[in-house]
């Protein structure tokens, strides 16, 4: 029996190795991955004989962080469809392929290599910070142009070939502390953060550092972890006991909805102040929006904005996916347009090598000033976008810009 089993396994292994090798032979075109490329633009590209820019995306579409990856995947898709419909970049269509990394650094490298086999020239990703740092190391080796829509950790853009579309963790923490202090929103502040998450601790650290210069006092700091984020009674009760009149919540809306529900349960009504991860809380299916009333946060994007570009994006997104896009989708959408702007400024063509393309695009980036859904006249220094955060408040069950 053991023999039969090992025979079976050896067979499977040979097959899989052969399949891998096969992929390598024809690395440029029609690999298995290509079939997974979404919808029409593949055909469009094929008809032009592969003369297209190949843009890859990496992010979690399964696993606990799948919410963010899916939003990015959809955001990129909308932008790619728009650009292709409008005649592409410099007359060339875009080929788009998105790979799952399950929110894990090791899997992100696999996703990156899969995309490389497919022929990726520009990377939009990765979505979450840790995988993004790991992938950044690879893109540096290959000198590939990388723009992360949502990797907030400082190290994500430490190399000259990488940019980000979102705010960095330190920017957000510092700006939040300044805003609270300058507007006299509170005298005593409590913080709850996710001590097992890079994003959350990053913002918290910057916030705590800046808080020392501000006219308020941090009276309570409590943490939770990825493994115990069901119950928030202790953290909320501690904040309440410390007499904090403002609760700073640097984490994502999934957990925030639980914290808000817990505050309501305990009859605790501080001012709630979040971070850009809060965008989307009103979209949580079946969520009692009254709980989030008054929640303020700094964000790059408000779906309610009357800006024409935003409205165009939001309408298309809602039509395609049946939900309001959050900032992940918006940053992803903008990322693709930044890629377009850089290619156009550089006058690049798809037949350039990955490295040449990257150098050309990076060289052109200094002259790019970008107007998008997450900000106007954005420029980049050292990979960081210079854009002013919007202050968003939930009032009457809607996001409103302050």
């Amino acid at each position, binding site marked *: *029996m*053991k*023999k*039969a*089993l*090992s025979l079976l*396994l*050896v067979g499977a*292994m040979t097959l*899989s*190795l052969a*399949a*891998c*090798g096969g*992929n*390598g*032979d024809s*690395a440029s075109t029609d*690999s*298995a*991955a290509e*079939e*997974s490329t979404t919808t029409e633009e593949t055909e469009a590209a094929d008809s032009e004989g592969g003369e297209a820019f190949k843009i890859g995306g990496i992010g979690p*579409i*399964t*696993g*606990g962080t799948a919410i963010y990856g899916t939003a990015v995947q959809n955001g990129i898709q909308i932008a790619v469809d728009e650009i292709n419909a409008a005649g592409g970049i410099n007359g060339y269509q875009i080929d788009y392929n998105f*790979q*799952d990394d*399950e*929110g*894990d*650094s*090791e899997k992100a*490298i*696999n996703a*990156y*290599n*899969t995309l*490389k*086999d497919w022929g990726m020239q520009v990377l939009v990703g990765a979505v979450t*910070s*840790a995988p993004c*740092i*790991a992938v*950044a*190391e690879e893109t540096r080796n290959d000198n590939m142009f990388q723009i992360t829509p949502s990797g907030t*950790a400082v*190290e994500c853009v430490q190399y000259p070939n990488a940019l980000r579309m979102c705010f960095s963790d330190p920017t957000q923490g510092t700006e939040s502390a300044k805003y609270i202090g300058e507007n006299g929103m509170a005298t005593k502040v409590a913080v709850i953060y996710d*001590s*097992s998450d*890079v994003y959350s*601790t*990053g913002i*918290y*650290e910057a916030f*705590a550092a800046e808080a020392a210069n501000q006219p308020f006092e941090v009276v309570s700091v409590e943490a939770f*972890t*990825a*493994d115990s984020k069901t119950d928030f009674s202790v953290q909320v009760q501690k904040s309440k006991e410390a007499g904090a009149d403002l609760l700073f919540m640097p984490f994502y809306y999934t957990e925030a909805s639980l914290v808000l529900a817990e505050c309501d349960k305990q009859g605790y009504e501080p001012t709630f102040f979040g971070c850009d991860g809060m965008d989307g809380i009103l979209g949580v299916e079946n969520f009692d929006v009254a709980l989030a009333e008054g929640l303020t946060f700094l964000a790059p994007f408000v779906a309610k904005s009357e800006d024409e570009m935003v409205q165009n994006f939001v309408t298309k997104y809602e039509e395609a996916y049946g939900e309001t896009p959050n900032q992940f989708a918006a940053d992803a959408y903008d990322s693709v347009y930044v890629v377009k702007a850089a290619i156009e400024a550089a006058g690049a063509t798809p037949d350039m090598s990955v490295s040449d393309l990257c150098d050309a695009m990076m060289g052109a980036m200094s002259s790019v000033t970008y107007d998008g859904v997450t900000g106007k006249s954005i420029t980049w220094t050292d990979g960081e976008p210079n854009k002013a955060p919007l202050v968003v408040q939930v009032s009457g069950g809607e996001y409103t810009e302050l």
Partner: protein
Amino acid sequence: MKTKTRSLSKTTRSNLITYGMVVAAYIIVEIFLRAGMVSSLLEGLLVPLCMYVILAVSLNLTVGISGELSLGHAGFMCVGAFTSAFFSRCMETAIPVSGIRFFLAILIGTVCAALFGILIGIPVLRLKGDYLAIVTLAFGEIIKNVVNVVYLGRDSRGFHVSTKDSISLGLEQGGDVIIKGPQGITGTPNDSTFLIGVILILVTLFIVMNLINSRTGRAVMAIRDNRIAAESVGINVTKYKLLAFSVSAALAGTAGVLYAHNLSTLQAQPKNFGYNMSITILVFVVLGGIGNIRGSVIAAVVLTLLPELLRSLNDYRMLIYAVILIATMIFTSSPGGQEIQERIKLFFKHRKTKEA
């Protein structure tokens, strides 16, 4: 006497086949690599494959040979990964030769994991069955949780440790935060290579297979099969169990070193060092055949490649993986599945005799 020599030569032959398989796989892959016929995906997977093979073989020592269900294997891997990455980060300038530095890193990671194996093994091995499983799981989770709150920085005054945040380290200007809580260690030199991975696999196989066929190995298996009988013939149960457990932990630490030096970032997340990882490795061991070392090697390779090859199925990828897992278990372990296997075997045998 005659039967004994024959059975000995049989195991030796079987071991040689296993080594040969690894070496052959290495040579084939190396030839393809030289010829540029290997896809980037497979090239990137080579070191992780070595790592998973080492993990599977080492866990098989605990689960298969020693008969203890351990769900905390990833914890030892975590220890090996963090200690070695810490060492490499500190010594990056002091020891510029990557070969020597990595060799020392492997030693350090392995030894630290072994120490944890002994420390945890002493209390844990008193328990049995599922209780042992849950306690190993608990230790694994504790290691992961503790690593996540450690901040460690270095400046001209030496090392500073905090469990709160990097600000409270009170570093001087220009100080370097090496372990940064959940963000772990970034900037570890990428020293892991396929060749080193394969060498480590061979060393692992050598250690484990020799252990199995030694006096010690037979004592361990005797304890697994009947503890009381083994005790009554004077086998020191605690000693042998602990030995197998800590060797297994040490090898998991080695795999952790490979992991840490393959990626430039190292975080202790549920995905890589949580119980999920321990379970993934356990799946390799069970599917490869409990106690069957060669099976572990093959299963680790196949099951690591499988989800990657299913990438083209996009959303259905993990679903198909789950179905394949269930189907394989039923095929290999149920009476119905075994009957089918027997029939296939008979069919081949039949044909062979006919040909002859």
